[in-house]
């Protein structure tokens, strides 16, 4: 426990004309049950009050504190220093716009993504306040929740080779969200509607299937299964569509 930690942090404040991107080292005594949340706050309060980083729930629930920790994207609040070597390197998540130091703008990206895939139930039914709720099988509700557990932290995108090459790639997070709506009987969208959104290189066909995303997902979402499921589903649809197209022409 008597370790002195060296925490190397990426520093850059785009709003300060004198600031240049560089790494800066901070030294801090490790204490019992120390997490990166505790360590970074201590550095800010005791050593450099300008240090920018993001935490919100500090309990591994909200997805606010994604950063690259010794090379791997993860949630900083639930990362314990005792599981890391005494040299710790922290970088902001790539892919998202940098706000400053370790802080990136995930909110704007996720809002645009959700708008793009129309991440809501599409239904023609009106809500009737007098009526009993529509029934649902509990097991199905639990399956939907299983995919709903994503916290939009962005770790999967930070780890994704395709996302690094194509700025418009929707990422495993969006594909997982689509899978959630496909599963949900309340959503009346059909295969072709989904195909329009993800049946392209921005979506399922851009994915190289190397599964960096699933490896890093702090919520352990079954991303691999969803990618496989969608690729098959969209592949079949494309095939069917091709045939339909042929029939029409001949």
């Amino acid at each position: 426990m008597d370790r002195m930690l060296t925490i190397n942090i990426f520093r850059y404040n785009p709003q300060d004309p004198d600031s240049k991107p560089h790494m800066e080292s901070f030294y801090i005594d490790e204490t019992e049950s120390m997490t990166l949340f505790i360590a970074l706050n201590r550095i800010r309060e005791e050593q450099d009050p300008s240090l920018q980083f993001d935490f919100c729930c500090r309990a591994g629930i909200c997805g606010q504190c994604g950063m690259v920790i010794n090379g791997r994207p993860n949630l900083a609040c639930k990362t314990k220093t005792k599981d890391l070597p005494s040299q710790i390197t922290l970088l902001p998540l790539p892919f998202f716009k940098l706000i400053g130091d370790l802080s990136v703008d995930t909110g704007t990206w996720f809002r645009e993504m959700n708008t793009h895939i129309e991440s809501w139930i599409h239904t023609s039914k009106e809500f009737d306040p007098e009526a009993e709720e529509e029934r649902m099988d509990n097991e199905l509700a639990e399956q939907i929740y299983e995919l709903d557990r994503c916290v939009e932290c962005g770790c999967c995108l930070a780890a994704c080779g395709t996302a690094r090459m194509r700025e418009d790639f929707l990422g495993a997070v969006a594909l997982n969200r689509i899978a959630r709506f496909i599963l949900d009987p309340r959503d009346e969208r059909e295969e072709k509607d989904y195909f329009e959104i993800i049946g392209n290189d921005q979506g399922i066909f851009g994915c190289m299937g190397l599964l960096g995303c699933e490896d890093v997902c702090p919520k352990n979402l079954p991303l691999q299964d969803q990618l496989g499921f969608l690729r098959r589903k969209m592949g079949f649809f494309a095939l069917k569509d091709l045939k339909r197209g042929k029939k029409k022409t001949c």
Partner: protein
Amino acid sequence: MVETIYTDLLCLGAGLAGERVAIEAAGAGFDVICLSLVHSKRSHSSAAQGGMQAALGNSVMGEGDSPDVHFLDTVKGSDWGCDQEVARMFVDTAPIVMRELAHWGVPWNRVVGGKGFYYKGGQKYEKFEDPAKEGLITSRNFGGTAKWRTCYTSDGTGHAVLYTMDNRATQMGVQVHDRVEAISMIHDGEHCQGVVARCLKTGKLRVYLAKATLVATGGYGRIYKNTTNAVICEGGGQSIALDTGVVSLGNMEAIQFHPTGIVPTDILVTEGCRGDGGTLLDKNEDRFMPDYEPEKAELASRDVVSRRMIEHIRKGFGVKNPYGDDHLWLDIRHLGEAHIRTKLREVDEICQNFLGIDPLHQLIPVRPTHHYSMGGVRTNKHGAAYGLKGLFAAGEAACWDLHGFNRLGGNSLAETVVAGKIIGAKVVEYLQGATATFKTAVIDERLKKDQARIDTLIHGGGKENVYELRNMMQDALMKGVGIFRNEKDLDQAVKTLQEVHARTANLGLKSNGLGANPELALALKLPGMVRMALCVAYGALERRESRGCHAREDYPARNDRDWLVRTLATWEEGADLPTLRYEPATPSFELPPGERGYGGGKIISADDKEA
């Protein structure tokens, strides 16, 4: 040039309350912008695990439930401190809102027909769910309720509901400006016209002008050191409302402690643990709650369980630990793997990640910790704030006043959406009749003041350290305004806070303050936070009785004769204490004051006019 943005409705906050009101207004065709410190889906509503109350009565243990029973539980829970007209509207609307959420996509857990098991106080019992109810929204047990009434999605209820709500808001065209912090309110003493805000990406100031403004900024737990609240729960909306000098904050002394914060980080493990049959154990691993509360045991209301835990620790039954305060144990081992790894999955993760223990085989160290603020911007039953036209409040930031002096678990998340619907409709009515004239002189003056505050912080040469003063404030409240309160400690807390408040006039930054500088953000809101803390401490000092969470060791009786009232705090410019006034707790009694049926304690009746 400072960017100016106009809209019909400006919601300060994009949690459940803010977004629910926003959806109502957007649905009626109005332009709506929500401001938020973080991506809207990270608002603190997402952290709620346990669930939300509504008397649907679908599950077998909820059979016979009705809004009337929910009403009784809520009023008793509040220790008769709540507004009963509001409680009535709330319980009647809650079931409709849960169904509406189902319609929008919340994957509620549903009734599974046939034989099943549940635990109570460590014992296993059998139950039989009516197959005719299969597939309807089910419910779990929570403290202080006569029936199982808490609707839930695993233990990620807040997450599932906020994601659905945020998606719905996107669909309805509600704009969310995230990483924008409101730092002052623009008003002319009569009308609220919007806010001055600071962009937390660039540090630039911005003006938002609106026909109606809603405060939905959540709780202010971070005025305390040990709290379950997220780090953004700093009461930004409430404190800028207080700073207008004309808006009242209601019942700020009513602070709830939750029995099961984990040690040492105060992260919450849900009340669902006890609702699902978890028990509290002491250092000898003996179950002690039934000795204090034979009827309800672990499932008495939160204020009662928290007090009993501290009582038991004071008798020497706490477990020693290296972090100072003794703790107790929460035992959920008997609930079994299937239950813990699915229905209590977040709890499982929290135990593994933050404690390094496996709750299947190990006990969870817990102690009562700060959790919820019953107080907030005082509104009438339509959600309109006292003091300024065009200003509304909803959710935890408001004192609407559904919770009185203690809120029941599951009633707060439900409040955000129910109030959102009801108040949203009233905001729409207001907007339909509203024309706004924005007075440039008022706006310019406000903006100048804020710019001057920033310049002084950066260049003024102030000597006081932002973090040091914040810590002093937090410690003063922990020490003096905790679970048990008394004259001497409260008096000390008030004095310390007054000193801190005076010193905030001389704050200075150590860093350059450029861009999204976090030190500047805290420096701008700290004086307001200390003023809120003073409302809490001074209100508690003046309230010489015990009611709900407000437990005065020197005035142990609930005194309906003198104190069946709500505290209203306002702050005059230049003052060093709030001005306190009082109003009747409720305009009418559907349920006359009586015993709660748990928690014991003497009552001085309102009929007892002798001293």
